């Protein structure tokens, strides 16, 4: 089942003195249950692509369909709702709201969704348990390590059962062992719960786990490999 499909995506950043073509003619499809990695050197356009697919930014030309609907036709409010309901985000760093504890960070989007308190608690605790960090529930971000923070970020991204989780270089700020652990957890979730993951990374650990690997170079798709 198709979740995201892009058609001839172009992204040109014009706010600089020289316009930068960050993406050129990108066509790809993300399907339910995919474990897809967009790889490429720094500056190749990975983040730009992920932001477009995650409805955080708008393409210069081309179209993005989310579950069959053209997202360029949606209002700011609808896009915000889309991110809230259907998408989970994991960024490179600083994912969490500093004034909220781990469990509150996870509960946060459920709260925005208006889920009742008891359900929120249960789902959040489950997510923490799935990631093996129950003991961090009441810790604030500044009391946790980078790896712990990223796990909480994963828990938050998956807690409302999104159609797809977008993770932009999630291991970039972690050491190899911690990064590997985190990737194992997401791998496990993909397999057991059929959660769709879309990564961007140039970390070999990520690339080697990819089941679909898309290589980007200078804003263009260089190759697509399915393992």
């Amino acid at each position: 089942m198709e979740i995201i499909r892009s058609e001839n995506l172009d992204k040109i950043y014009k706010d600089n003195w020289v316009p930068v073509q960050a993406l050129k003619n990108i066509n790809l499809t993300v399907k339910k249950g995919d474990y897809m990695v967009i790889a490429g050197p720094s500056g190749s356009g990975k983040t730009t692509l992920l932001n477009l697919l995650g409805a955080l930014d708008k393409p210069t030309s081309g179209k993005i369909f989310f579950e069959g609907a053209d997202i360029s036709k949606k209002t700011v409010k609808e896009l915000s709702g889309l991110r809230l309901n259907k998408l989970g985000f994991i960024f490179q760093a600083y994912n969490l709201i500093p004034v909220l504890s781990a469990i509150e960070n996870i509960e946060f989007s459920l709260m925005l969704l208006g889920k009742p308190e008891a359900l929120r608690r249960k789902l959040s605790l489950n997510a923490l348990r799935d990631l093996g960090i129950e003991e961090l529930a009441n810790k604030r971000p500044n009391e946790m390590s980078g790896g712990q923070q990223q796990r909480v970020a994963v828990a938050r991204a998956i807690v409302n059962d999104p159609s797809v989780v977008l993770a932009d270089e999630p291991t970039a700020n972690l050491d190899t062992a911690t990064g590997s652990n985190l990737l194992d957890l997401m791998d496990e979730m993909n397999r057991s719960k059929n959660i769709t993951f879309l990564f961007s990374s140039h970390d070999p650990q990520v690339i080697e786990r990819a089941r679909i690997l898309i290589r980007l170079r200078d804003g263009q798709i260089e190759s697509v490999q399915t393992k």
Partner: protein
Amino acid sequence: MTKNLLINLAWRNIWRNKRRSAVVLSSIIVGVAATISMDGLTNGMTYQMLFNQINLGTSHIQIHKTGYTDNRLVKNFIQGELQLKADILRLPGVKAVSERVVTFGLVSSAESSAGIYVYGVDHKAEKRVSAISGLIKEGNYLSGAEREVVVGYELANKLNAGLGNKIILMANDPSGKIHSDVFRISGLFESFSSGFDKSYIFVNSDDLQNMLGLGNSYHELAIIVAEPSLAESLKSEIRSAVGSDFEVKTYRDILPILVMQIDLSRESMWIVNMIIGIALVFGIINVMLMTVIERIREFGVLMAIGFSTGKLFSLILLEALIIGLSGTIIGLVITGLIHIPFSYTGIDFSWFSEGLVSLGVGAVIYPVVSYQTVLLTIIMTPMIAVAGAIYPAIKAIRLQPVAAIRHY
């Protein structure tokens, strides 16, 4: 993190940077305290001026023969036979009435002389209408004995006359003839107004009526009512009772300049308050802008996970509102704690009282805070705080989530 997401989040954000919040909070507290104390002092001062004038003899309502105010002539007297006083005393709300013989005259001693207003009064009735009897610093107020006169210190000094000394009063009778008579100083008073102390003297009405051949006629009926606010309604009641032969005026009509001054100082308070408000707004804009810039990344994450721009806007305003409300409450409590004792003891400004005394205020000012100002402060201050957060909040929601996230 249960009941209200936004309030909770806002509250926690305030505690996040305690020093900054404390700065905003204290500037609001100072603003509240300044607004209310200024109001208290100005009101205290102007009310005191009005109160003093009323007490020194203006009273709440005065009745004269029509034409007297334009032409303060001795011949514009009210016939004693009319028994106006008894009629007016019967009206509900009237507390005291005094008949006064009033004329301009000249007092002289061996050394000097001065033009003055002389009031001939019935000491018993007058004691209930004016406060002069309470301002006697030496000797006694009028007792009804013959040829007594009560004068202010300033005048006594000018005449170089003291207690028991005689002064000669000279004045016109209704036909224009000049009469003079001798009086002995029975008491010396000191009011809050040096101008008053220099130019008013008090004698028994019998003596003045005899001297001027007035019989039992007089010029002025001074009325004290139960509540100053009753003055206006009683005025029209009295007016219809006494008819058009008499002028009925309230202290507002008699002291238009003072009343105007009070209104004016109210208005100027608005300007001062506005300046305080504007200063607060800019202070808050400044601080809120700093917190917004500092949290751009955080806002990016919030927006990425589906926090709407509307909610973000509300969050920032809410943070300002909470600080604004707390500042207002703390400010009110502190001002109250300072103000309440002072409203009983008064604040002694005698270190520059010279000026105040010649203004007719008195050196000790009892602050009077108007509930309007308190109410206005309670409503306006949090609104001002919120107003100061609007621009930073607009800044925050204009951010694209991507740009915000990219902001390392």
